[in-house]
């Protein structure tokens, strides 16, 4: 039984020999990749965009355009889906051999539904960013208010504390304030 040897580590470690003494002598980390790259023989892309339905060869049932009324289209696709189920049931009773077209139409509606839901995701991401930024602004304002209230508290303390310290030399009392 033979075991495969582990590949040696990449030889770049030699470049970092004097990192402790001089951090500038070692090379900078590589810049982030843009575009497509190859990883373990597979091609990947950094530009994640949802492919449109035409690119996948699926007919688009809702009207195209930049601003889609998601609620209206989702509701109408739901109604159409229910109608198609009824049609499939009718076809199975009357003309059972013609089920294939109905089933294809039902799967087309499902693909459109999922595509609509996937195209809602960027909108959700932007809304999440807006929400997080608003929360952050609120927290920073709260921190500013807290900091502003502190000097007043510390001033009162500074006035109260000297009275509590033991007085062992009356002639040195004035050196504090």
């Amino acid at each position, binding site marked *: 039984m033979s075991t495969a040897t582990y590949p040696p580590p990449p030889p770049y470690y030699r470049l970092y020999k004097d990192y402790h003494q001089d951090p500038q002598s070692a090379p900078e980390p590589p810049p982030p990749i843009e575009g497509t790259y190859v990883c373990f023989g597979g091609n990947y892309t950094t530009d994640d965009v949802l492919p449109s339905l035409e690119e996948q060869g699926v007919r688009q049932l809702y009207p195209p355009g*930049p*601003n889609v009324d*998601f*609620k209206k289209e*989702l*509701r109408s696709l*739901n109604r159409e*889906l*229910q109608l198609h*189920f009824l049609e*499939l*049931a009718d076809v*199975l009773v009357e003309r059972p051999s013609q089920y294939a077209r109905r089933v294809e139409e*039902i799967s087309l509606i*499902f693909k459109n*539904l*999922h595509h609509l*839901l996937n195209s*809602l*995701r*960027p*909108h*959700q991401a*932007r*809304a999440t*960013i*807006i929400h997080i*930024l*608003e929360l*952050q*602004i609120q927290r*920073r*304002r709260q*921190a*500013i208010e807290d*900091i*502003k209230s*502190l*000097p007043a508290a*510390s001033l009162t303390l*500074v006035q109260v*504390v*000297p009275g509590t*310290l*033991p007085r*062992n*030399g009356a002639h*040195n009392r004035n*050196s*504090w304030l």
Partner: protein
Amino acid sequence: MDIISQMQEQVNTIASIAFNTFGSLQRDAPPVRLSQNYPDPPPLPATNSPEDASNFPEQPKIMSAALVKAAKQFDALVAALPLAEGGEEAQLKRIAELQAENDAVGQELQRQLEAAEKELKQVQELFHEATDNCLNLKKPD
């Protein structure tokens, strides 16, 4: 779970209820009578018939009720979508505004923090002086 994932789950649920409905109806349906001349089919074995005979007329009703309920839940989820009007440009504009405001508030916070740290150092120095004076006044035993 966020609402879009819930909607995706609901669509998959509708699909699975649909194919379970059609599949089990097709599997369990009694055969169609083609002509009065043909004899009746032989009865099914006793173990199966009580369940099928009582359940079968009810099955379409139960399963279609489940399908309609799932569709109504999807409608309710669609109604609950918090879609702000304005589209992508309005959202991007709002993000830019919020970022600018965030930067301004962050700088203000930084200034306040520096001023507060300076005051803290002053108070600490005064405190050290006071305690040194106190300790120096103590008579050695």
